[in-house]
């Protein structure tokens, strides 16, 4: 087992290096430059933009810049943002809490909806409940978050005036008031993101359950006279959850990406909005760092999924 884990980790390193090369080259070749705003400003002489380019090493060949970056990374130096002249790691750490809070809550919400609904729908396939759940799930993942987000804003902020339209990290108050306010402002983004996730997850849980529910050993368990609840929870769900757990693990990085739109709509100062504004400002060190973090998350969760497989089904790790 440990040998298997070690092997997976060793494979992860070159893939991360490969990813970093691709990211770096793509960013270096992409149009636009971080000093574009200076170009139209008559107050800023062209020499300043040129000297800044030189100072930040933007005129060096790509491979030199890459080597520079990778060696700095190896020393734990993430570089600094051209735009805010602040270290990139500080910038990311500042954004992380909001992202974790909103995405984490949304993910929990989606599981709280998807698992019970998916399981119950699978136990009674083609029943009225199943059909309603299916319809809602289809509607749910056909509606993009930017649409539901604006719809929610129009209903709950503008018309009803219940919830704030703008998410702010600077919530007034202390103690219980602060907690309530934090929850209040997160309701809309969490609901938008959570419902979207729940929709596809429900479909997945349902089909995973259906796959297992028809297997012979389930029939055997029923034949032994076990109660329906016990069969579903102990025998069916446990096995059906294996692919679901994997899916959740693999979806985590994608969720970070999917939250970009939601973060933009509600002005949540998360990693996603950092990525967007950095891309718009051509702030390459930040874009590079954030996308690399995403890449690391993908590799990490893949690794966890692999390890989980190995643990759930020992045959995999022996191969």
């Amino acid at each position, binding site marked *: 087992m440990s040998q298997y884990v070690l092997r997976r980790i060793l494979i992860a390193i070159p893939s991360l290096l490969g990813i970093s090369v691709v990211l770096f080259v793509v960013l270096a070749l992409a149009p636009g430059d971080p000093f574009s705003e200076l170009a139209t400003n008559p107050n800023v002489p062209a020499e300043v933009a040129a000297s800044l380019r030189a100072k930040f090493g933007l005129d060096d060949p790509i491979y030199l810049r890459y080597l520079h970056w990778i060696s700095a990374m190896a020393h734990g130096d993430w570089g600094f943002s051209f735009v805010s002249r602040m270290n990139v790691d500080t910038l990311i750490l500042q954004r992380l809490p909001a992202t974790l809070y909103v995405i984490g809550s949304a993910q929990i919400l989606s599981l709280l909806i998807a698992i019970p609904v998916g399981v119950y729908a699978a136990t009674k396939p083609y029943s009225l409940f199943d059909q309603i759940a299916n319809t809602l799930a289809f509607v749910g993942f056909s509606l993009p978050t930017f649409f539901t987000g604006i719809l929610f804003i129009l209903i709950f902020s503008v018309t009803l005036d219940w919830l704030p339209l703008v998410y702010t990290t*600077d919530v007034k108050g202390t103690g219980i008031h602060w907690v309530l306010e934090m929850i209040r402002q997160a309701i809309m983004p969490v609901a938008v993101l959570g419902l979207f996730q729940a929709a596809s997850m429900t479909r997945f849980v349902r089909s995973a359950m259906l796959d297992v529910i028809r297997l012979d050993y389930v029939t055997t368990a029923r034949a032994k006279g076990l109660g329906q609840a016990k069969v579903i929870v102990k025998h069916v769900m446990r096995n059906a959850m294996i692919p679901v757990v994997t899916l959740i693990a693999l979806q985590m990085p994608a969720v970070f990406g999917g939250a970009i739109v939601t973060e933009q709509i509600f002005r949540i100062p998360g990693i996603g909005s950092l990525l967007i504004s950095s891309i718009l400002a051509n702030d390459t060190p930040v874009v590079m760092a954030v996308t690399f973090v995403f890449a690391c998350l993908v590799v990490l969760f893949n690794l966890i999924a692999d390890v989980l497989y190995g643990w759930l089904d020992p045959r995999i790790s022996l191969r």
Partner: protein
Amino acid sequence: MLDKKLRAMIDKVADGRMDRRAFIQRMAAVGLAAPLANQILALGGVAMAEGPSTYKPTKRGGGGALKLLWWQGPTLLNPHFATGTKDQDGSRMFYEPLACWDPDGNMKLVLAAEIPSIQNGGLAADGKSVTWKLKPGVKWHDGKPFTADDVVFNWEYAKDPATSALTIATYRDITVEKVDDLTVRILFNKPTPFWADAFVGAPNAIIPKHLFADYKGAKSREAPNNLSPVGTGPYKFIEFKPGDLVRGELNPDYHMPNRPYFDTFEMKGGGDAVSAARAVIQTGEYDFGYNIQVEDDVLLRLEKGGKGKAIYAVGGDTEFIALNFTDPNTEVDGERSSIKTKHPLFSDPAVRKALSLLVDREAVKKVIYGRAGRTTANFLNGPEKFVSKNTSWEFSIEKASKMLDDAGWKPGADGIREKDGKKLKLLYQTSINGPRQKTQAIVKQACQKAGIDVELKSVVASVFFSSDVGNPDIYPKFYADMEMFQIPMTQPDPAQHMRRFISANVATKENKWQGQNFPRYVNKEYDAAIEAAEGEMDPIKRAALYIKANDILIGDTVFIPVQHRLKVEAAANNLVCIISGWANETDNLFDWYREA
């Protein structure tokens, strides 16, 4: 205005025979705005006055929280590194310049004790130096006194190329010396009619010497106070999250009486213009929204029964179509749009003039810009003093067609006009931006009716406005026949703005397209007018020279002005906010308050 008459009036004011207000009113009556009337007075020998203050609160504080919404949060808080207005706006919450501009373009004192003039000895008659007196008793937020040393330090800091300050152009050609603790003198190497650049306005706010002295030059990025400002302003720094949030609290030692009104402020960034307008105008969650570029009918709808309103400020920003004077489709020495070529179609002035007749500015205003735009015939649209009255515009497809007919451009079999085998086919490019694409469509339609085939092209703004010389789509390369955008006019003086188009500034491969004359317009008469204006200390003659320069650009149809654009902001109904078209949004924030 007749030169003699004006002079007589200035003399009357100087003698006290006419009061200043009457003078300004009479100037306004002949189309000269107060700011310029004031500058004329200043140079004509009468002190430049401050505009009247509208500030009402009678005590400091008590105004609660002020919530501001920007569509991009500031990313750093040092005015010398501020890229774009969002950073200048953020820094200006804490740092202050010697003076700033009010909505009429009047000078407003901030850290200076008086406006330099010839009378008070502040202004040298030869225009080669200006002496500023500083307000006594001003303290930095950490309690240290603000003195002339700080002002001199800012000059040393910014002019050092190793600092890479974006304000370097303002400071590198001047000399700043300390006269005494509360007096500084700026020396210019040539007569400088517009002396109010260095240390004036949000981009030139002053940072403290005692905290930045160790971080001059190459170490400039490492200064811890780049992210935690210690200024002299009405608000003290609390918290900064780049791109997201800036917070501050009332400065109890602020040097202006009864100010500031608000106890705290919060400046939040992110999102889009429509939702910002909604948060201010419709739900009232925020007090102020910056630069609300939303279509006018949307704003009007939000305003109905809302908690806020849209407000407008007039500056000098002009949306224009520039015509290419060189040939974008022929390569000379590996360079397109080379100055060695001539545009095959535009070398006929009739084609350029016809195009100008085909831009329906009234329709563009009606359909697109609404209250945020004004139709104009000029490239230079402000300040009033510099605006030409000699020009006019009209929209007429018939006249354009006739003009082309007369010049020998006859419609071919496909309806497109041609002459000597050259077809009137044009490529018209701009940046991707809703109003711009709509304008393109309006122009294209009119051109089609007149027998001109226009191909539209739009480039992502981050590419179009970039300085990346490797990209063929940047606006200075101008690999098209026409291009449309707007150059921000950042000062209430046209010198910088108009200098761009002298022959020496033509954008070429040789200067890596850093030359700012992108239409590649070469005219000795224009060069001479600009050259003369820059050394002209007589304000009336100087204004006449800039008006002449504008008339040359328009007469030759180098630019087709599309719209004189106004600044649009959203504000709560009870917020009294002073916004100047000649300054940053936060420049006059010390005068903001809430009406009961």
